[in-house]
């Protein structure tokens, strides 16, 4: 599969290959996480979700960062393609952000019996980011397509990455006066095998995200090309 749009770069790896590789890695990751890596002494089986929760969270950050980078390129140099790339990256980031919240919630329920805890700074941060990036889509789709929409979306995406560290700092500071809970917040201490399993999971999920990103981009570009063709034919 290749895009016919003049905007697409020539990529080194084709999407089907990426998809196959991702699927294989995810399979390997699941096997490693559930069957090979030893159970954590304290948390037992619920700790297994960390193998996915943390990589998903890291991938979400990466997507937001990637989206912001594309946004910066758009504002700096211009070029319609960056708008689409930024949007798709942020879209993926938001999906993975939602997954982070979901897996985090499952982990919280499994570990402490509550579907939500304000305890985990990471989780609270993702809640804030999820709100922020949800607003991104509402903003984007309430503006008419065109350079204005692209510019505004790009600026907002940049605000997002600035918000990530600032918010994290804020949440840390808020610990002081937000009622502290009695839950322990230590992550699992990882042995060698666990660490290896974790890395494989991380790689797998990053690859899945990248594959989805490429797939969505292709889909949207095909859409745009089709529209152009239709216009030329009917004009």
């Amino acid at each position, binding site marked *: 599969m290749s895009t016919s749009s003049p905007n697409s770069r020539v990529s080194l790896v084709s999407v089907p290959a990426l998809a196959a590789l991702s699927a294989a890695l995810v399979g390997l990751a699941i096997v490693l996480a559930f069957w090979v890596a030893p159970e954590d002494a304290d948390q037992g089986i619920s700790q297994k979700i960390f193998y996915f929760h943390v990589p998903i969270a890291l991938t979400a950050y990466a997507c937001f960062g990637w989206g912001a980078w594309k946004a910066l390129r758009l504002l700096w140099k211009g070029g*319609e393609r960056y708008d689409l790339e930024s949007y798709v990256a942020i879209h993926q980031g938001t999906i993975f952000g939602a997954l982070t919240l979901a897996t985090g919630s499952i982990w919280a329920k499994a570990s402490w019996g509550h579907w939500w805890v304000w305890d985990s700074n990471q989780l609270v941060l993702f809640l804030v980011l999820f709100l922020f990036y949800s607003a991104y889509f509402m903003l984007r789709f309430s503006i*008419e*397509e*065109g*350079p204005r*929409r692209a510019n505004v979306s790009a600026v907002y995406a940049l605000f997002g990455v600035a918000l990530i560290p600032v918010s994290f700092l804020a949440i840390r500071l808020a610990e002081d006066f937000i009622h502290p809970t009695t839950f322990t917040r230590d992550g699992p201490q990882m042995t060698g095998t666990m660490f290896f399993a974790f890395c494989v999971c991380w790689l797998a999920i990053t690859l899945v995200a990248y594959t989805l990103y490429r797939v969505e981009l292709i889909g949207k570009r095909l859409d745009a090309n089709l*529209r152009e063709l239709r*216009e030329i034919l009917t004009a």
Partner: protein
Amino acid sequence: MIQARAVEKRYGRRRALRPLDLRLERGGFLVVTGANGSGKTTLLRLVAGLAAPTGGELDVGADRGGLGYLGHEPLLYRDLTAVENLDLYGRLYRVPERRERIGMLLERYGLWEVRAERVSSYSRGMTQRLALCRALLHEPELLVLDEPYTALDGEGAELLDRQLAELAGTATVLLTTHDPGRVEPLATSRLALA
């Protein structure tokens, strides 16, 4: 002064201006006509720098300080007086001897009596005259006027005729109108958009 090669503008799927070539020399007077929706306003906005073309090349030989624009909206603050509006723009455009220039323009366009009244109390013709003053305030070398006659009353239209006659040859003028006959004597080139 203005050079356009295959300049076009689209907003996503919507094409606002089809690819267009254009040349306007310094001191020229270009009259643009066309039906509604043919892209006249879009073209003028591109030249004025309010929008960037999505295709082709556009070269405008005047920077923001040398360009005067009159659009469909008056670009004024309704709750400020004529003097206050022009004073603000005068500052932003670094107009020398601001007060004198404002006074001269207001008098010339018959707004001196109402200079201390808010724009919200003006008639449409008066507002358009003030918008014209705003466009002329900094003595621009390129004047971009989008259907300036449409909102003007009879007296205002005559004043504009006189002003354009004065400017023809010294300033470059790009103007759209539904009544090309009126400015025909001044035009050095004409463009009809489909």
